[in-house]
């Protein structure tokens, strides 16, 4: 029997526990333990993805009990892809984070890694599971770890931001739990597939409608869809960089995955788009989310904050795509899970390097950064282009599918929002570039012999290598997006 599906989730958990023990006995060991744990997990995720591509969906029964009695992992193409994204971003971020953790939380690094691994475990578990309640437990693990991490960052504002995050997060999770309760009450089951089978006979029920609304509200709060985004910017910008770099690309994306999973596997697209006919309202909501996120990003004076609002904007992309009610939109949303994870990761990697060197990343701190940290900035620029949607970076191609989907659904307002947000992102990033490139102003025309040369102070090599790899992957993912769509997304949707 192949145990890879379980291994994906279990190895980080085991590693977290071992790192927790190592924290008290031999702290130096906790980092290698974490690294090995995530490497194994990533390998398992890769194996599973290959297996799913060649031989179809994998069902893995925990404790050997058949669903719906036991908990089952149902890994199809979508999970497998998201699992691989999560595992590999977690792994590479860990490589890049060694120095940051040393700098920020040196006296309790072991426990930090344990929490980090638990967070990854949670994300992986959320992605892999085929059980509604198991999903809740794992969402809580991710939330609990992120509350902790957020509070560990900024000493002045972190705890308060985290406390507010807790209040909103608990409401979100509780709504989801209530939704599951309503579903359970009507169906008597918790396994996603089983629930879906029973649900197909219950489409008119008001309980199911409420269950659906509650689940969606809960997940939207967790993913910070506008106007439920208020916790996100503070939480992300006050957390320690090692954590910000992983939570920003992964947390919201995994929640989007959960939303898509609930929509497709549990409630069924027919129910949502034909019985309820909610598509239009939610697409409008997503449109507002995009515009609002972009506009709020314009008002920021801090790089981390700005990026956080861009995440709010990107969430609108994915929600809108998923709710477009056609295959193209859904394709775009799923593709954007991958692409947005990569681009946000690349952006935050660069920001992490800047924070490592500069300590603060208000815009005024960034002067002359192109001279100081050319490689970091190269990665940052490429990631920014991807967010703006410049081909051949991957951001362009998911936008392509999303706009196509919008045209097909006749949601021209959504397409317009996408275009406008691209423009605003261009303004945002070029505002940053201008500061990094032009300031401090050289006197007169800078000439070769004048003192316009700034000493290069680059981030540590580990960060640069990861940053470089991810930047390359942005272009590679873009160029091969046709392959990804054809081998993973389209077969999944059919």
């Amino acid at each position: 029997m192949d145990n890879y599906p379980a291994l994906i989730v279990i190895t980080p958990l085991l590693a977290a526990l071992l790192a927790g023990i190592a924290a008290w006995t031999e702290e130096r060991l906790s980092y290698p333990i974490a690294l090995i744990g995530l490497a194994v997990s990533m390998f398992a995720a890769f194996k599973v993805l290959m297996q799913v591509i060649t031989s179809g969906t994998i069902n893995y029964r925990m404790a050997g009990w058949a669903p719906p009695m036991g908990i089952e992992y149902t890994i199809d193409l979508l999970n497998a892809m998201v699992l691989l994204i999560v595992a590999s971003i977690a792994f590479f971020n860990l490589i890049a984070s060694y120095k940051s953790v040393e700098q920020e939380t040196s006296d309790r690094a072991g426990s930090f890694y344990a929490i980090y691994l638990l967070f990854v475990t949670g994300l992986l578990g959320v992605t892999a599971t085929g059980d509604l309640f198991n999903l809740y437990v794992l969402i809580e693990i991710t939330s609990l770890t992120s509350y902790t991490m957020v509070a560990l960052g900024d000493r002045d504002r972190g705890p308060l931001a985290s406390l507010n995050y807790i209040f909103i997060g608990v409401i979100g999770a509780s709504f989801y739990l209530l939704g599951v309760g309503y579903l359970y009450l009507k169906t008597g089951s918790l396994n996603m597939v089983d629930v879906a089978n029973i649900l197909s006979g219950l489409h008119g029920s008001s309980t199911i409608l409420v269950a659906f609304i509650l689940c969606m509200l809960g997940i939207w709060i967790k993913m910070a869809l506008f106007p439920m985004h208020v916790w996100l910017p503070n939480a992300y910008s006050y957390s320690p960089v090692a954590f910000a770099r992983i939570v920003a690309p992964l947390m919201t994306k995994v929640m989007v995955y959960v939303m898509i999973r609930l929509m497709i596997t549990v409630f069924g697209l027919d129910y949502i788009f034909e019985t309820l006919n909610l598509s239009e309202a939610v697409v409008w909501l997503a449109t507002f989310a995009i515009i609002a996120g972009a506009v709020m990003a314009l008002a920021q004076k801090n790089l981390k904050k700005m990026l956080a609002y861009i995440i709010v904007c990107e969430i609108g992309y994915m929600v809108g795509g998923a709710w477009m009610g056609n295959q193209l939109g859904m394709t775009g949303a799923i593709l954007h899970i991958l692409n947005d994870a990569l681009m946000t990761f690349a952006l935050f990697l660069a920001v992490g390097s800047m924070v490592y060197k500069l300590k603060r990343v208000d815009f005024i701190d960034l002067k002359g950064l192109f001279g100081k940290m050319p490689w970091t900035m190269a990665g940052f620029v490429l990631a920014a282009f991807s967010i703006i949607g410049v081909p051949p970076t991957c951001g362009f191609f998911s936008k392509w599918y999303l706009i196509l989907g919008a045209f097909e659904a006749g949601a021209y307002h959504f397409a317009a929002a996408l275009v406008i947000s691209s423009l605003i992102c261009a303004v945002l990033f070029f505002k940053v570039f201008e500061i990094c490139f032009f300031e401090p102003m050289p006197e007169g025309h800078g000439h070769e012999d004048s003192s316009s040369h700034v000493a290069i102070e680059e981030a540590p090599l580990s960060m640069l290598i990861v940053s470089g790899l991810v930047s390359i992957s942005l272009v590679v993912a873009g160029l091969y997006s046709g392959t990804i769509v054809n081998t993973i997304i389209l077969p999944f949707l059919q």
Partner: protein
Amino acid sequence: MKFLGFIIVCLTGALLLYGTGEFPGWGDPHSPASIHLSNDYIEKAVEQTQVPNLVTAVLADYRGFDTMFETAVVFCAGLACFLLLRDFKEKKERFYRHTPTGVILHVKDSKKVLKTGKEFEHMDKDWVPSDLIIKTICRILIPFIQIYALYVVAHGDFSPGGGFQGGVIFGSSLILLAISYDLKVLVKRVKEKILGIFAAIGVLIYVGIAAICMPMGGNFLDYSKLAPLVPGDPHHIRALGMLGVEIGVGIAVTAVMVIIYINIVSEGRHEEGL
């Protein structure tokens, strides 16, 4: 904000009540929830797992995977409290009590440390003379509470109880120690390091038992595959496996309860507090 909150609350309430419209009546034995899975569990669980307490059977076996993560949540909470609050910095000022006379010394120089022992006693800023009656009663009670906790863990298969409950009871016995004496007594008896390691080991026992099933040829958590490793009736192997994980849960919960308590009451300094 209040008005807005009120509107949101009313809307949520209305939504939830709207959903209850189609609910089956309370306690209806024919509601879907009472039929679909519930009957399977009730009728098959004893046969399949040899555990008559169905809650334990479902908790530790059918949905053992959930419970494992639940334990991980507990571990995570302990870790979080430690990470957030623990303050390793030496305190600036100290108070000592000269035991024979009862005179209290206030030492402001952080470098000056008096030797505590017969003569001097280290004490909190807001120290209250401990009450002899409370101390004595608690000293008598604590062992019984602990024995009871062990019983609750061990007997979880047959009667209400289990690792969480037992762990909480055991943890509260330790907390009682801290309340009746003072925090330093507890910290001296149960070292922080031990607590930290035990919290992890408890979960590790759970995950370990579950993971051993994989090289034994089963799925993750499939206790039935452990039979070759454990002497005794292979018929009862699932019950034994559950007992094993419950013990792990108990250890983890105990340790984490104490960690959370110590860190919160002393604001992470472990020197003074309730």
